[in-house]
């Protein structure tokens, strides 16, 4: 197991995923679809959040950065790594979070 370089300022060090020790933040890729993309003006973005953050925490951060998302906040759902997820799911380094507005396939 490779020893990762990490900042240890008052961080509760616990194994996260395959890492031998926790980093203080994780990078998450966020995808915006359909109306969400219209509202943010972007197809995707990178989010850096505190290690241990949840999908819900990411959403709060995203709405702060893209206030327009408030319009679909109540009817959107989230997907984490191509699976529907709940707000309480913990995000890990390099996870892919997708903002899923109401769908219309079929």
């Amino acid at each position, binding site marked *: 197991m490779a020893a990762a370089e990490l900042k240890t300022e008052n961080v509760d060090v616990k194994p996260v995923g395959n890492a031998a020790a926790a980093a203080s933040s994780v990078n998450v890729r966020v995808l915006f679809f359909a109306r969400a993309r219209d509202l943010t003006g972007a197809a995707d973005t990178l989010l850096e959040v505190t290690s241990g953050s949840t999908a819900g925490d990411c959403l709060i951060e995203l709405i702060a950065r893209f206030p327009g998302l408030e319009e679909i906040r109540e009817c959107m759902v989230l997907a984490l790594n191509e699976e529907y997820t709940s707000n309480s799911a913990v995000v890990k380094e390099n996870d892919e979070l997708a903002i899923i507005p109401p*769908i*219309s*396939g*079929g």
Partner: protein
Amino acid sequence: MHNDQDKNLIEILDGNVLVDIAKYTNYVSDPQAGAITTFSGTTRDTFDGKTVVELRYEAYVPMAVRQIQAICSSARATWKIHAISVAHRLVHHADALDACKFMIDELKATVPIWKKEVYSNGEVWKENPEFMERRSMEPAGKAVDAPNVACRRICCGAKSKVSDESTACEMNLE
């Protein structure tokens, strides 16, 4: 959940590609099978009295394929199905039979594909009522409301005459 031996063909197609119905029919054809049911969806050119000038689709393709896989698994849990082929053209539809109807309903509730109708005086992203009802997000493909119907022998599911095939769901039943 998904058995690698399950014979499923799942494709999300670019809007410019016409659906080759024969390809999907051939995939499910098998001497073992007692029947083939087919659903073909089409697009329409008016909605609520407004003329639709353009339909634009987009999809979260890898997740859409994954969700359709889950729906296939769920259908197999209820009905004896030999092979399934599903093509969703990123271009749009209405009714079907038994397992086909279930799959289409599940697709509308869970598969991340979106449609925007562009009118001469505006545009709107459409929203499936099935999605809004299901927002608690049961694990994908769960046959929550699927009727418990025994497999019936049907002689070649009726194909409606369509000028523009968009969604094809073919399966054969043992």
